[in-house]
């Protein structure tokens, strides 16, 4: 009952809400696909299969392949630490983990740029050792790890709290060691939560633009991920190229959404 039993206000709210969503969400989504195929399939496909386009795709997948496993292992370990080991420092760890959510990607990029730059604290030492961080893959990986750091921790912590410790205690009473308990009891119980975090981490790394653009220098065919490729194509007035790469990213985003919804249902079941 309450407010919405008046059918006039019900229809009004529905029209307002759905109208807003159509203009802000639905229209852009339709537009990407429309624009990419407006002038036929050739141009967008050419753009993606050009050497620079393929390199950008490979580099993007490399970012995912390095950052996501690292943040997943860190995330699960850190969540166990936060939930199962009371310590007064936990509040500090928790606060630091939330930082990447709130900090501008540009600020993250600049921070790495300054730390590893020629005048930075680490720059000269690493340069002498012949290790290149900026304008190359390691710097881009560091940026990707930074921006996607919190997801697995944040998704795993509530699930760990929910499952409690009874089954783990039973396992250890029966003689399982910590590793066995983790692999056979804890991990299966938290797997959907972890998987949800992994999906979010992947989506964030795939689409990261601001932080990576600062540390990579966005050199075509060298340090350009797909999002950077989109901007470069746009700047070079190659709109079909920009839309072609965009549609690839949009499809990945839709896959992510689908995965999120499937995992959500599994987790609630």
């Amino acid at each position, binding site marked *: 009952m309450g*407010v919405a039993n008046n059918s006039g206000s019900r229809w009004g709210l529905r029209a307002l809400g759905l109208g807003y969503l159509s203009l802000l969400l639905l229209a*852009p989504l339709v537009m990407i696909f429309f624009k990419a195929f407006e002038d036929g399939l050739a141009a967008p496909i050419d753009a993606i299969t050009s050497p620079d386009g393929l390199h950008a795709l490979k580099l993007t997948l490399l970012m995912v392949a390095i950052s996501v496993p690292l943040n997943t292992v860190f995330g699960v370990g850190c969540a166990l630490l936060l939930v199962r080991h009371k310590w007064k420092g936990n509040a500090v760890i928790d606060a630091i983990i939330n930082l990447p959510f709130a900090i501008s990607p540009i600020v993250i990029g600049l921070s790495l740029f300054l730390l590893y730059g020629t005048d930075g604290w680490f720059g000269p030492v690493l340069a002498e050792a012949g290790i290149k961080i900026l304008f190359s893959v390691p710097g881009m990986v560091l940026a990707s790890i930074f921006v996607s750091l919190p997801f697995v921790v944040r998704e795993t912590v509530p699930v760990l709290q929910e499952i409690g410790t009874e089954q783990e205690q039973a396992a250890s009473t029966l003689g399982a060691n910590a590793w066995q308990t983790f692999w056979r009891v804890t991990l299966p119980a938290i797997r959907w939560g972890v998987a949800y975090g992994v999906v979010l981490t992947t989506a964030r790394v795939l689409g990261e633009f601001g932080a990576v653009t600062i540390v990579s220098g966005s050199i075509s065919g060298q340090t350009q991920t797909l999002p950077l490729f989109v901007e470069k194509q746009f700047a070079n007035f190659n709109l079909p190229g920009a839309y072609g790469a965009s549609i690839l990213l949009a499809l990945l985003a839709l896959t992510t959404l689908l995965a999120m*919804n499937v995992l959500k249902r599994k987790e609630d079941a």
Partner: protein
Amino acid sequence: MSAHPASATSAPAPRAGLRLPGVGAGLGRGTVGLYLSLIVLLPLAALTAQAFEGGLGTFWDQVTSPLAIASLKLTVVASLIVVVINAIFGTIIAWILVRDDFPGKAAVNAVIDLPFALPTIVASLTLLALYGSDSPFGIDIAFTRTAVVVALLFVTLPFVVRAVQPLLIEMDREMEEAAASLGASGFTIFRRIIFPNLLPGLAAGVALAFARALGEFGSVLIFAGGLPDTQVSSVFIRQQIESGNEVGAAAVSVVLLVASLLLLAVVSLIQRWGNRHERSGGGTGLVGMSLDLGAPRGGARNSEEGDDDGSR
């Protein structure tokens, strides 16, 4: 990070549940501390050091240069407009997703998180195609301040919806029915009963959206551009980096960084307030959303534990 002898054994203490497998808590904390320092803290320290390299005076001069001030003003004003619109429409959308029923509701609910999944640069490009000079709707707002607001509206859309939705689901309908039977109008019921219960979630969602809007870069870049009067702070910072003014870029970055820290503190206070509100029986208000800036849950799920895990 001293090693904790009791937890270094592989057999966990009874009743404690699983300890970090294979490592003790001390080693675990050391690893986490090292990872966080290398990835997060050291870069931020380097940034702060650079900002104050020329002393406090230089820092202040950089932050108060006309262009820096203009960009900060635009960023704050646009973000404020954005969170007000978000508060209103986010609540309406959460409302129709929970209390209304229409064909395709599940699909609408699923698509709310699109802005978190779609790369920001793609969003910017698409918004330009939609609301630029070739707009199929005949609306051309590209490279204006309105474009800044629209881009920020897009990327921050899910925050309020996902923060308010679980509270609406949990809300006890009896109070509303009682008020209605006593003759309260729909608006009175909303103002006196529903709104106060939604407030903790709404406040948290608004704070998170504000933080995101302040730092947003990719979605604004192509659509609003970097013209003198459409330059938000993040775009300004990039231009300073490109023109070699690292101290100026770092100085404005520190301002944004401090704003982020303050907003995170505000969110954590709101959550504590929301939890206390619930415990004292003052209502069903419960901030179910953990500090998920990038990721409110796909559905409207309520985690009773909230986000206070770090404090125990």
